[in-house]
């Protein structure tokens, strides 16, 4: 193995790459593509996405039925879920020297909780156990694009996803659009503070992907590969 290099950002042997952005911004598609590319190049890659665990979805269902959830309990519940995912799935591979790819990280909580009226400093201090990533890609899209992609996917928009608890509008679609507008405002506020690498994600998928490869390559300098997969031809490894 090549001499160990530690991340200048968090000091662990691995590297942490985070994909953030609104629903429908294309970040999940790209996070998967990037993972495939890195695996093909022989790196040890760990991919993880922040979809609510059973614990959270079950509790949210129960809380919603009884009308018990408030912005504070909602925020704490998601922090619990993230902590579980962090302690179980993100930190161990990061320490062990993997390239950890996160489809959503603590920033998702920052914007969502701020949009619900929680004290932003309180939320950030709660998540301070999560180290800053080596690179955070923020997939910037207009809210209209996010909404169009979401509707085209024909997934049902859930009550909390649409921010219905905030009383922004009576119908789900309008509420969703207003809530996403708030989220986008919070994301844009974080760009400088959290050193986001902004990706113009309204462009075609392949163009966006080429940008990502260009951004990620310098991070891999001196980062050890495992055995190169024999079938990884140069086309894939680009």
């Amino acid at each position, binding site marked *: 193995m090549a001499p160990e290099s530690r991340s200048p950002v968090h000091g662990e042997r691995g590297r942490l790459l985070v994909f953030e952005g609104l629903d429908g911004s294309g970040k999940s598609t790209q996070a998967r593509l990037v993972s495939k590319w890195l695996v093909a190049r022989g790196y040890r890659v760990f991919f993880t996405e922040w979809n609510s665990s059973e*614990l959270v979805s*079950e*509790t949210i269902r*129960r*809380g919603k039925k*009884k009308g*018990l*959830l*408030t*912005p*504070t*309990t909602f925020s*704490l*519940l998601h*922090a*619990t879920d993230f*902590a*579980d995912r*962090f*302690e*179980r799935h993100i930190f161990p591979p990061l320490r062990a020297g993997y390239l950890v790819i996160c489809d959503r990280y603590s920033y998702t909580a920052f914007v969502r909780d701020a949009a*619900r*009226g*929680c*004290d932003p400093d*309180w939320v950030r*201090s*709660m998540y*301070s*156990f999560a180290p800053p990533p080596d690179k955070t890609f923020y997939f910037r899209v207009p809210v209209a694009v996010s909404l169009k992609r979401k509707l085209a996917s024909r997934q049902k928009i859930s009550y909390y996803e649409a921010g219905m*608890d905030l009383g922004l509008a009576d119908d789900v679609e309008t509420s969703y659009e207003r809530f996403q507008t708030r989220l986008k405002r919070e994301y844009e506020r974080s760009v400088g503070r959290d050193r986001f690498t902004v990706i113009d994600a309204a462009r075609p998928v392949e163009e966006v992907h080429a940008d990502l490869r260009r951004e990620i390559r310098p991070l891999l300098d001196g980062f050890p590969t495992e055995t190169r997969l024999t079938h990884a031809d140069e086309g894939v490894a680009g």
Partner: protein
Amino acid sequence: MRTRALQASTYGTRLPGLPREPLTGRLIVVEGPDGSGRTTEVSLLRDWLEIQGHPVVESGLRRSTLVAEQIDRAKQGHTLGGTTLALFYAVDFADQLENKIIPALAAGSTVLADRYIYTLMARAIVRGASRAWAQRLYAFAVRPDLVIHLDAKPDILLHRSIGKYGSLDYWESGMDLCLSRDRFESFFLYQDRLRAEFEWMTPEYGFHRVDANRTPTQVHADVRAIVRDCYRGTLVDAPVPEAAPALLRARARKAAAG
């Protein structure tokens, strides 16, 4: 009548999405480890306050309808990490705060809390969280009017636990911390660490320390003196007959069951 605005009464963080009712009731917290006589004290105090016309609502830890069951389940498996467990407890606490403690205070009741954020903070800190993190995490809690800390030596706690249950509890001995494979040894190490955290919090949060190495009657006399100050003379110190507390407790249980 004294009132406090809700948003001005926390340890620094707002609680969004709640009605803006002022809090007119008093919040009295009784802290102390298992075996410190906490539960006995809470029930004596409740009787004393209610006899004098102050309605009491009790709260405790791990009693929320939202996640209490899931915490119990998770603990059985011993699979949660320290940060996750600390946050899980915070969900449970926040749920009780918002759905039980705050409404009761807004209605003018006295809330008697059988443990509060301080136990949760101490537990999180001895499991590796920083003090600053734990303090910030619980900054949404309503500041109590009084915090009574029943402080007892681990030696006394050990004897009370053995006397009551015949054994030492896994969690109360901090076995998950792997301080020692020997449960007795682990118990002492763990209780010492918790105690150190309470010592640091005492000036920080203005705890009233009560020596709980004594009998319940002696402890209760001290607690009454502290609580009396908090009600500023509105409490009549009517002597409660020795037998009254037990009688009242039985009735209270029946009322709660019905």
